């Protein structure tokens, strides 16, 4: 029997439920090792202007084995639907893939999404044949609207990007899980392994993170911790946890006690 736990977004099937980023690493070598330790199969990258005056810098793709990883261009740093749409189109040409992690940011301090602009950009890009994975608020109604707009997955935040605060609104994520008819990826906010496990225990199909791994003192070891946490959380979710009770319920027999 095939017991491998797979899941599918659009036309791609994954066995790893951990997606990772490429930012903030101390060196490309550490990034490569961390990616390897994470077991991830999809890696997100940013799209930026080439530095015309300084051509000495190596390209990120020099370090990433594109036969091993799915490259997911993102529209990080875009503040309007138009910017995000342009960036997505450029990312498609640079990467020759029609997948995009769509971000339209509404505010510099929180990096919270501008959901109105995000919906608009999703509609346009879906019409153009993109597989759109939108980074969004942990709002069940917005997630439903994104699904209706044709998003191939929904990616609500657990907490603000890079904050490491962990899952802030467990109840909303539960509701989003119940509503969702497309894969649910918790994107951003994870600080440590238990946060990733919790996201998976809530029923997320996958978790996407960057800073929690890249910013750790030992990114390679943290990448492995995240791999294990995502697996543990997934397994706990599919195993059906016991209900929570107010009082104790003994796990040893109450009959046959000595002296009674």
């Amino acid at each position, binding site marked *: 029997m095939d017991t491998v736990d797979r899941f599918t977004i659009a036309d791609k099937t994954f066995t790893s439920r951990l997606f*990772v*980023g*490429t*930012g*903030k*690493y101390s060196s490309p070598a550490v*990034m490569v090792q961390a990616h390897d330790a994470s077991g991830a199969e999809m890696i*997100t*990258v*940013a*799209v*930026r*202007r*080439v530095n*015309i005056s300084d*051509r000495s810098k190596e*390209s*990120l*793709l020099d370090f990433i084995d594109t036969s091993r990883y799915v*490259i997911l*261009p*993102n529209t*990080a*740093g875009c503040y309007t639907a138009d910017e995000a749409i*342009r*960036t997505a*189109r*450029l*990312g*498609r*040409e*640079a*990467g020759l893939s029609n997948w995009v992690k769509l*971000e339209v*940011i509404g505010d*510099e301090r929180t*990096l919270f999404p501008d959901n109105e602009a995000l919906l608009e950009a999703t509609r346009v890009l879906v019409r153009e044949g993109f597989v759109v994975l939108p*980074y969004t608020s942990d709002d069940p109604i917005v997630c439903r609207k994104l699904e209706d707009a044709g998003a191939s997955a929904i990616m609500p935040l657990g907490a603000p*990007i*890079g904050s490491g605060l962990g899952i802030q609104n467990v109840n909303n994520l539960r509701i989003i899980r119940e509503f969702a008819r497309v894969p649910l990826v918790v*994107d*951003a906010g994870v600080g440590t392994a238990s946060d990733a496990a919790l996201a998976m225990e809530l029923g997320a199909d996958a978790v*996407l*993170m*960057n*800073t929690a791994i*890249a910013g750790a003192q030992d990114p390679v070891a943290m990448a492995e911790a995240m791999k294990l946490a995502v697996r543990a959380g997934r397994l706990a979710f599919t195993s059906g946890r016991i209900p929570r009770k107010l009082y104790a319920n003994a796990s040893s027999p109450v009959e046959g006690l000595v002296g009674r």
Partner: protein
Amino acid sequence: MRITLNGDTHEVAKPLTVAELLEQLDIDPRRVAVEHNLVVLKRGTFAETMVQEGDAIEIVNFVGGGSSKG
């Protein structure tokens, strides 16, 4: 003639193709995407797309990132 390249004024001797521009800039065309006057170009059209006086060119590639930086 002057063009706008990645937001800055850039001087080139005469009209040229996008492929020629990339070569002048020592940029490997396989690693970048190019936008010409707000239209994203298919890589196969670099050799036939002419850059004229006043055109706006954006040349981008992939860099490290996970989520938004402001």
